[in-house]
């Protein structure tokens, strides 16, 4: 297991569940609201809810940890109210683990940015137009009110396509902000602050960031600044560089990654935790994820297709409903979206479980090979970046 917080106990030595071929690991995180098996995919419940799915359904699916967004929840309903409701756990009645991000990413991606200074990020509220300054201290204060089990530092986020001195400036500032965040955390024993490694696509800068941040005694590390539109060839190299220099005994959280192929490859490169809105968002557009790609259920071709989305899937949707019915239901009722959301979460969690089992049973490379074979009609269609990345950790595809 991996130790988190000063009181975290080691459940199982990570060396027992490491892939001897690649950098993949299978571990157990001990968190205040229960154990989390890794590798893990964390569904995103932005506003204190997972789009149409009840917490009972989420529990039933075996989800052990999910995400909430500090930016959204900080705006509505606000940290004071959530604190009165016994934290985000109490507010949404989720009994297992929660991870909250810092709010930084939303500000870059969603909001008209005024300015980033050493003090913090100044932005304009979309609800009343007021200027708001989010400092590292305030981000941590909000997350303390939310009471999430894992909290993220506020980082100075730059898009991975940005080059030049801004990248280094952001990286250096993120280190300083990490220290401010750690100092501001009121609950270090039950809220685990993760650092976020920055440095863009520049190996030197990333290495410098790794050197500095790993000097801090934080419970875990996120790999940030990636999955933002950069070339996949650059992406994987930064991931593997990061995991090469992160301590073995602490979890590695790769932010914003959720496509099946990306998950499998990045597990091979040594990542333990992932989050992404993709599976739940795409569900609402009628896109059902399957081991061989995805089904666009709103398309006419499914109108008379009476088999389930995936005959082998054990989710409630697949046990009861056909593609044809879901296709029809999309014209009438929102429940169609919920059915697909449930299925897609099941797909993601099942994938991670299979990955984990294969690592524990020392057959991860074979798993990767059969996964890729199922996903792509022929080996010519394997993405070259994935082949390169896997080859770099000694996994060759046919």
């Amino acid at each position: 297991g991996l130790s988190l917080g000063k009181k975290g106990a080691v459940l199982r030595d990570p060396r027992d569940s490491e892939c001897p071929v690649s950098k993949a690991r299978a571990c157990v995180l001990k968190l205040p609201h229960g154990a989390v098996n890794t590798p893990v995919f964390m569904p995103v419940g932005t506003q204190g809810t997972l789009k149409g799915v009840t917490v009972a359904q989420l529990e039933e699916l075996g989800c052990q940890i999910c995400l909430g967004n500090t930016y959204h929840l900080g705006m509505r309903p606000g940290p004071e109210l959530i604190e009165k409701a016994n934290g985000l756990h109490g507010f949404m009645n989720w009994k297992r683990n929660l991870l909250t991000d810092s709010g930084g990413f939303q500000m870059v991606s969603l909001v008209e940015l005024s300015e980033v200074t050493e003090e913090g990020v100044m932005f304009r509220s979309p609800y009343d137009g007021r200027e708001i300054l989010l400092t590292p201290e305030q981000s941590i204060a909000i997350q303390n009110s939310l009471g999430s089990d894992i909290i993220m530092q506020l980082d100075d986020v730059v898009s991975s396509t940005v080059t030049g001195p801004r990248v280094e400036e952001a990286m250096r500032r993120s280190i300083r902000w990490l220290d401010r965040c750690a100092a501001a955390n009121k609950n270090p024993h039950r809220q685990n602050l993760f650092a976020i490694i920055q440095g863009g696509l520049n190996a030197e800068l990333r290495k410098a960031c790794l050197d500095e941040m790993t000097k801090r005694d934080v419970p875990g590390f996120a790999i940030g600044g990636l999955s933002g539109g950069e070339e996949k060839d650059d992406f994987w190299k930064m991931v593997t560089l990061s995991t090469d220099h992160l301590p073995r005994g602490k979890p590695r959280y790769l932010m914003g990654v959720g496509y099946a192929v990306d998950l499998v490859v990045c597990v091979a490169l040594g990542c333990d935790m992932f989050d992404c809105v993709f599976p739940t968002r795409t569900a609402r557009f009628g896109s059902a994820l399957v081991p061989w790609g995805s089904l666009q259920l709103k398309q006419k071709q499914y109108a008379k297709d009476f088999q389930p989305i995936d005959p082998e899937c054990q989710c409630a949707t697949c046990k009861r409903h056909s593609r044809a019915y879901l296709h029809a239901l999309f014209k009438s009722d929102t429940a169609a979206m919920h059915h697909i959301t449930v299925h897609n979460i099941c797909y993601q969690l099942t994938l991670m479980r299979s990955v984990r089992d294969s690592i524990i049973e020392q057959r991860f490379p074979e798993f990767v090979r059969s996964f890729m074979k199922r996903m792509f009609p022929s080996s010519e269609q394997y993405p070259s970046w994935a082949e390169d990345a896997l080859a770099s950790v000694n996994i060759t595809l046919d």
Partner: protein
Amino acid sequence: MSCRCVSRFLNYFQRGGMKLELSKVVQGCRLGVLIGIGKTGQHSLELPGCLLYTRCATVPHLTQDTLHTLTYLPAGAQVALDGLAEHHEVLEEFKEGVRKFAGLHDTALFCSLHDPATNCPTGHVTNKTVSVWGSGGRIEMTAARFIAMQAVIQPDCYQSMADGETWQTNTSRKRVHKAVNRTLAHLDECLTLHHKTPQLKHTEVFGVVEGGDILEERVRSARETAKRPVAGFVLDGFQSAAMEQELRGQLITAVTAELPVEKPRMLQGVGRPDEVIACVEAGVDLFEGFFPFQVTERGCALCFDYNVTPDPEAAALSPPTVLELNGERPAVEDPKQNDVGNTGTMTQFEINLKDIRYREDFRPLVEGCGCYCCKNHHRAYVHHLLVTSELLAGVLLMLHNTAHYLGFFRALREAISHERLQDFKTTVTKVDFGGRKQLH
């Protein structure tokens, strides 16, 4: 075996399956059970009761597992041709009926012409056809097509094809007369075609009583329809939007007087609790269950009290009523002040959870309600979901509102059974405009 058991036993083997067993009539209200519904006669519906409202055979917002967090589900559900007509070809290829197609639980299925929660455009009815409205637009059907649709849907019961447009516009006497005639003609044609359709061997037909707001036409329609071999009656054209309750009550009373006592009477388009009670008093047995859906769509939660203590002498010692516990005044003094858009006007039976007053309210929607929403969440959370336009709001509200509404029907049956109807009416309707009635 008791007499009742024997009759049930015999009924099981009768092909004219559906049968109404009346146990009591109190102040015009009929209490009983509709038995023998379904292919093997396995379903029975307690009356007065309501059908579970569905869109395309799904209860709105709810997957099957969330639906089944509800402990009491009515034994019957409703589908409408508005939602199903466009899937004719698919159902034809599927062959096994809409219940199986939808993965719906084992429930009796009633098929109506129109979706009670949707306003359909009018003016498309002809002598030979009616129209329904799917996601792609208007679908016209003759009696032949209508029956063909029923054959692929395979409900346990359906209403015959009818001309019911008299309620949507101010209609002349002549038009009403024509609607009654057409509906009878459609019924005769449907019955003929029905008996030639093997897939409908175990399916019952309800005749539809029309007549607008004209007493003579209503009586004529009722008498004529009653002459046909139908299993029950649908009362059309009395929709809430169309008619004041007083007139509705009078006309329904006149209609039911013409109908055989031993056959069920279903009323379309009426769902408000006070109107339901009044219509039960006028002789109605079965209602469409769309009201909880409408309440959900306007972001509201049903909260009206329907608990009447069984022993009047224990009333002084009884626990406070639901609303008293909540320490609440009605959220609506005058419902006209609270028009919540095109999802209908809010009633005195509900609270508007979007209201800022619920932002920090950590109580359940209704204290003592056993539904999933009330057991797991509080008003502040549902308020938040509504304010942030989150899909879960619809799920939770649909669960609560359905549970509350079904509880109301259970309590209504109990009130009739215990002959406490007056107290029940006072309890349910006492949240009044202008605060004339006191909460005691």
